[in-house]
């Protein structure tokens, strides 16, 4: 589904990504781990079009996406969340969900003014779906709260909610459970698993918690100094000496 070949990204003299190659199969959950500063978030930013690449190829669903703008990439069905969850602060939680809905007719000013009936019908449908998803995320009681008043963990949940509303084929999650309480984090992981099984979504997940990674991912890539240090099943990774040395503290 996502095929990254020899990706390069430099910041001045710093080689943030130094020839990264990585594959995410469709309907899979792939993990991406690595020490701080190893290039995980940079990889997300380049793949999602926020940073221009300095070399290499990115193919998504058989099409080259490197060089496209972030919104074009998102429209092709590849969506990402941010490490520090973002949310338009003066939109309510419910509006945040509606914001993410696909194919909204009222998004250009002409139809917003002249096709109001169609627009409001579609808004109602989206509202129904948003409400269901908020119930699932246990955010219903906050639906009319400004998103700016949410805690960091709640914003993380909301970003996942927006992803579900948007319904892309591949979701890049940047530390989805950071700042979320343990019970809810478990629910969240359960939800990711269910989405993959029932809706055949693919995920690429940056996560620091090795237990979570082992539990969730079929395949794991380890980044270190902008290079892929190792790849394999969680078991293989946990036994890889280089990985242990670089990442897990080394014993």
């Amino acid at each position, binding site marked *: 589904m996502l095929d990254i070949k020899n990706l390069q990204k430099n910041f001045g003299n710093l080689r943030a990504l130094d020839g990264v190659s990585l594959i995410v199969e469709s309907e899979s959950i792939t993990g991406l781990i690595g020490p701080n500063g190893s290039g995980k978030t940079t990889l997300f930013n380049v793949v*999602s*079009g*926020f940073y221009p690449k300095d070399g290499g190829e990115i193919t998504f669903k058989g099409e080259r996406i490197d060089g496209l*703008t*972030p*919104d*074009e990439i*998102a*429209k092709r069905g590849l*969506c*990402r*969340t*941010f490490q520090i969850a*973002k*949310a*338009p*602060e*003066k*939109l*309510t939680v*419910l*509006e945040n969900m*509606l*914001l*993410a809905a*696909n194919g*909204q*007719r*009222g*998004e*250009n*000013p002409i139809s*917003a*003014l002249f096709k*109001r009936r169609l*627009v409001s019908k579609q*808004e109602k449908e989206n*509202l*129904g779906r948003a*409400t*269901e998803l*908020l*119930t699932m995320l*246990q955010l*219903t*009681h906050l*639906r*009319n709260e*400004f998103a*700016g008043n949410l805690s960091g963990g709640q914003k993380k949940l909301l970003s996942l909610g*927006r992803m579900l509303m*948007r319904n892309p084929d591949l979701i890049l999650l940047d530390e989805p459970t950071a700042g979320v309480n343990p019970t809810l984090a478990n629910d969240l992981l359960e939800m990711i698993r269910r989405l993959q099984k029932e809706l055949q979504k693919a995920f690429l997940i940056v996560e620091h918690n090795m237990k979570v990674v082992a539990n969730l991912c079929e395949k794991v890539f380890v980044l270190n100094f902008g290079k892929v240090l190792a790849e394999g099943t969680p078991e293989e990774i946990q036994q890889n000496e280089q990985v242990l040395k670089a990442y897990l503290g080394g014993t």
Partner: protein
Amino acid sequence: MPVVNFLIYLLIMIGIYALLALSLNFQVGFTGLINFGQVAFFAVGAYTSCLLVCKAGIPIVLGFLCGMILSGLFGYLISIPTRSLKADYWAIVTLAGGEIVRLIAVNEGWLTEGSFGVMRIPQPLKHLLSKGTYPLFYLVLVAACVVFMYFVLRLLINSPFGRNLKAIRDAEELCLSLGKNTRKLKMEAMIVAGAVAGLAGALFAHYITYISPENFQPIETFLMWAMIIVGGRGNHAGAILGAVVIQVFNVSTRFIVRYVPLGPDVVAPLRMVIIGLLIVAFLLFKPEGLVKEKKKIYELKDNQAGEL
């Protein structure tokens, strides 16, 4: 009845500036586009309409329409070089844009009559009404335009389009990650805002009947900013209220000159000092302005409410 005439004049000027404040608020308050050259829209609308009517002889209604269209087009033009700029640079470019428009008006005499200005601008339906009732008619016209634009902008802001604009203002990167074409959206916002301010320009030109580049100094943009800061950004009613407060102060103080022991050369700049202090006071003590941004609440049916 000089008092009544003055009141009508004041109300018309409030109405015209209310349109300008609504337009600026649409850009700044809802979309997060810092426009320091708002007066340019005003000028483009005013000049387009009166020049087409005076020189090409088109009907005044069409002049108004062309003023709006060209001003909207100017909004589109401004948004091309600025499209990938951050807010502060957007501010600088628009400031320059405003000055460029004024300088064109000063220097391209063959088109704009230069600093002499355009004189004897015809007024709509003037021949049908008596001299006494005409200002009242114009007031009704301006008021109707304000009410109409208020509802149009409100409709837009409450639509998915408006939601996108607010989201751009608060978190542009997030919008991109959700597949929103933020450049296009900003462009559309500038066109809408340009058209609204262009209407204000046309109303102004055909009311005053004489315009020159002097009417479109950067200080006018400052006044419009004062209106949305005092009234409250992100709220249409706030923009109109701000226009009322600032215009009442700005227009009425011209007549105070007679009653205070200071020369007009002191009073005029003093007015701007006081408005400046007002802006500072609001930013410090009431940054949200007189009217806060409203929260949009969706009423859910009981079966939709889920577990609480």
